[in-house]
């Protein structure tokens, strides 16, 4: 009896782990990092933290806008919705927008091309987040696998 209960418990653990795994595979939009997107109007910049449960606006973060020659054109802060607006200089088509959150290490930048229309720093990289998570799990399973292989070899040698 005890053994069967033990086995059932084992099964439950495996199922729970697997469900967590599924949750992470399909539920996540993006990692915990800052993304900056913009649209041409005046010019509106929107910065947010990505992660499970959608976007969190990156509020009151420092914004620096550089022109095409790399000179600092305008600085400011995002509002409570993570947005920042500025007027482009006539003739200057490209800007680099840097957003620095008020905590160290959280910084992102995007290149704005007025002839291009829309840019999105979160679109970079061909590999999606679920694939990255799978890749990480793959490495970890590899570590466990090598250890198990070593164990079984040792056991065979001793036998």
């Amino acid at each position, binding site marked *: 009896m005890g053994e069967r209960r033990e086995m059932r418990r084992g099964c439950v653990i495996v199922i729970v782990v697997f469900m967590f795994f599924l949750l992470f595979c399909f539920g996540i939009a993006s*990692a915990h990092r800052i993304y900056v997107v913009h649209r041409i109007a005046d010019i509106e910049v929107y910065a947010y933290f990505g992660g499970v449960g959608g976007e*969190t606006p990156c509020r009151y973060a420092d914004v620096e806008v550089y022109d095409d020659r790399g000179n600092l054109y305008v600085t400011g802060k995002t509002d409570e919705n993570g947005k920042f607006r500025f007027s482009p200089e006539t003739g200057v088509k490209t800007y680099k927008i840097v957003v620095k959150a008020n*905590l*160290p290490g959280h910084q992102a930048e995007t290149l704005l091309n007025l002839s291009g229309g829309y840019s999105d720093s979160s679109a970079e990289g061909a590999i999606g987040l679920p694939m990255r*998570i799978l890749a990480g799990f793959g490495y970890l*399973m590899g570590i466990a696998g090598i*250890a198990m292989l070593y164990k079984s070899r040792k056991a065979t040698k001793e036998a």
Partner: protein
Amino acid sequence: MVHISDGVLSPEVVVAGWILSAGIIAFSFWWSSRYTELADEMPRLSLMTAAFFVASLIHIPVGPSSVHLILNGVVGIVLGVLSFPSIFIGLVLQAFLFQHGGISTIGINTVNMGIPALVAYGISKIVKGRLHNAEKESLIAVVSGLSGGIAVALAALLTSVSLIMTDLIKGSPIYHDAAIILLAAHAPLVVIEAIITGSVVVFLLQVKPELLAIARATA
């Protein structure tokens, strides 16, 4: 937030982080190989590293910013001294796959999150050792929960210390405010992780106590 990016810290702090973390990783492998077969520990280590690896994706809005789960307390209590190398592996994967935290700062980040993991393990282990009583399960869970919270608080504190050390070396208070904000922002996370750690320990004590490093006789 406790993952410091490249180019933030002064080289002295970065180098000290690598030396410290390399030393502690070597020590933890040596220590646990005295008591256990390292190969036996690897599947457990990989599983906990996987949890740590994805935990950083779950973030909680705090004021103008957001914090994410760290789970270093849970890793410490489940893995014992091997939590340190586990966190190192987790941070390497996070840095390369999620661009979360810098690559040059993996050393100092491991120290900042790994030492609190060892502290959480130490506290829970000592309290558990004093009890000698299986009926005190709920007490063990409470203590583990508290040490899980302490692990987060300590990680935030150590990260702030790394930033302030950089300020001291550079001689200008660039990160002074950031260090204080960082501490304040992690207060809610301390409570959340305390609850998570306590729940995990209750669950494991009932279902599979031998998985817990604190519930086993050695390391």
